[in-house]
């Protein structure tokens, strides 16, 4: 079976797919790719189904030795990828030969990059999905990131190579939000600050949630009971610093849900680097 070896795993490189659905009832988050637009593009470029699992890299990508020739595609963040030291483009199908090394630099635009390999990656499934979810040890590698020296194998389904190039949207600095169920618990001043002032993602963020720094948003009241939350929901703890619930996020929370982002917007938001100022608009 064709394979490759991770010479360097990168900062946080995981197997992801479209996630496990229908399990939030049991408090199991969907997980899956953080930028579904980029992941879909990568799978399309190699001729895979959109449901195929692929490799998600975060901020610093891996170095991979391919033991077999195959069609691959790189999308999402521009990680200054090279094949045998020759720069290669993102957003197009690439043919890599056996013995060649794919190597990433650090992310220039965006923070998450996708590597799709033509065929079916052999990865462990939990509840019908290979998506890595660290907290509950679900998916490939019992929920752990890919490791140094790890070999990944894939099954060839249909071999083909088409020269395709797709374009990607630039990462915006303004994100559309909608009023959440507890929007009206925001003080009047906070409602104005939410759209007028700049926020940034702080480095204590992860796949569960993006913590935001910005103006301290005041609430007129808190919540008595925990309520449902979904990826894209913006929660506001009493500290006044909002948290955007992401793909591995919890399914209930005790803080007012002041706003929410749609899935497409969340894909773009998930490419935003730490400490980059941005604004919300309603």
């Amino acid at each position, binding site marked *: 079976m064709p394979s490759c070896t991770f010479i360097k795993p990168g900062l946080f490189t995981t197997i992801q797919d479209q996630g496990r*659905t*229908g*399990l*939030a*009832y*049991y*408090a*199991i988050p*969907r997980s899956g790719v953080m930028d579904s637009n980029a992941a879909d593009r990568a799978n399309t470029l190699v001729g895979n189904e959109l449901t195929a699992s692929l490799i998600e890299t975060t901020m610093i990508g891996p170095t991979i030795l391919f033991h077999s020739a195959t069609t691959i595609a790189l999308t999402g963040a521009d990680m200054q990828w090279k094949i045998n030291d020759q720069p290669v483009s993102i957003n197009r199908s690439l043919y890599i030969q056996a013995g060649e090394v794919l190597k990433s630099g650090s992310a220039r635009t965006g923070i998450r990059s996708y590597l799709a390999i033509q065929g079916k990656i052999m990865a462990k499934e*939990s*509840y019908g999905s290979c998506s890595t979810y660290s*907290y*509950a*040890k*679900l998916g490939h590698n019992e929920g752990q990131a890919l490791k140094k020296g790890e070999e990944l194998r894939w099954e060839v389904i249909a071999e083909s190579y088409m020269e395709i190039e797709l374009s990607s949207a630039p990462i915006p600095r303004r994100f559309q939000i*909608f009023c*959440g*169920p507890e929007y009206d618990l925001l003080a009047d001043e906070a409602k104005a600050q939410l759209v007028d002032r700049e926020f940034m993602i702080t480095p204590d963020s992860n796949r569960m949630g993006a913590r935001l720094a910005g103006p301290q948003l005041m609430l007129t009241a808190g919540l008595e*009971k*925990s*309520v*449902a*939350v*979904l990826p*894209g929901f913006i929660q506001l703890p009493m500290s006044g610093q909002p948290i955007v619930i992401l793909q591995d996020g*919890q*399914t*209930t*929370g005790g803080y007012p849900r002041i706003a*929410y982002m*749609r899935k497409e917007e969340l894909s773009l938001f998930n490419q935003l680097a730490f400490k980059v100022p941005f604004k919300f608009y309603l």
Partner: protein
Amino acid sequence: MSPSVQIDKYELELEVYETEFVLLKKTQASQSLTSLAQQIYQNQYDFVEEVIGTESEICLKLNKHFNTSSLEQLKDLKLIASPKTTTYHLPVLFSENEDWAAIELASGMSRKTYLAKLLNQEFSLAMLGFLPGFLYLNGLPQKMAIPRKTTPAQRVKAGSIAIGGQYLGFYSLPSPGGWQVVGHSPIRILDNAVLPPVSINPGDRIILQTITEKTYHALLNNPLSLIEYNELL
């Protein structure tokens, strides 16, 4: 005011957030939404991607099949008689240290008094949420409610039993947590290899049972599920 909707015996407030999600909020404080959430989940409506049931509302995450007439299907829902609830004993090693100082301070009770009351109480599973295998249990008397920590602990051990406001909680997974820990259970509540991953259902009862350190370690080395443990009793 949000429009109201009648589903079986439930009078609910309906809030629709575009084509993204729907909230069904309860209007009568005394009514439990547990059976309704379970029925909606089991009915597997084609327009519903996720069902999250909490004490005050049911959240339905919508998918691309949702259209203006989708919600009509909910109105035709008939509640199948709610399943029988089961009572389980949960063995706990109550520790001396942990967060007892905060509990004694907030409740004005000694550790011994508070513990005696905990052991005398019957709890019921209010909801699942937060993280996989986390249990929110109802049944804590008002005067035993303890505020959450102002700064959450970085890491709460798997198996921790803790008080958070009016809830008693069980942590299946290690995680950061703001609840006041009273002890630990060696019982395995979460099993990722099976569906459902948690065998206890909302409405089921839990009675805490104190165990010795020796029993705790024996069970920890040979972990049992809640059902397996109760079959041994």
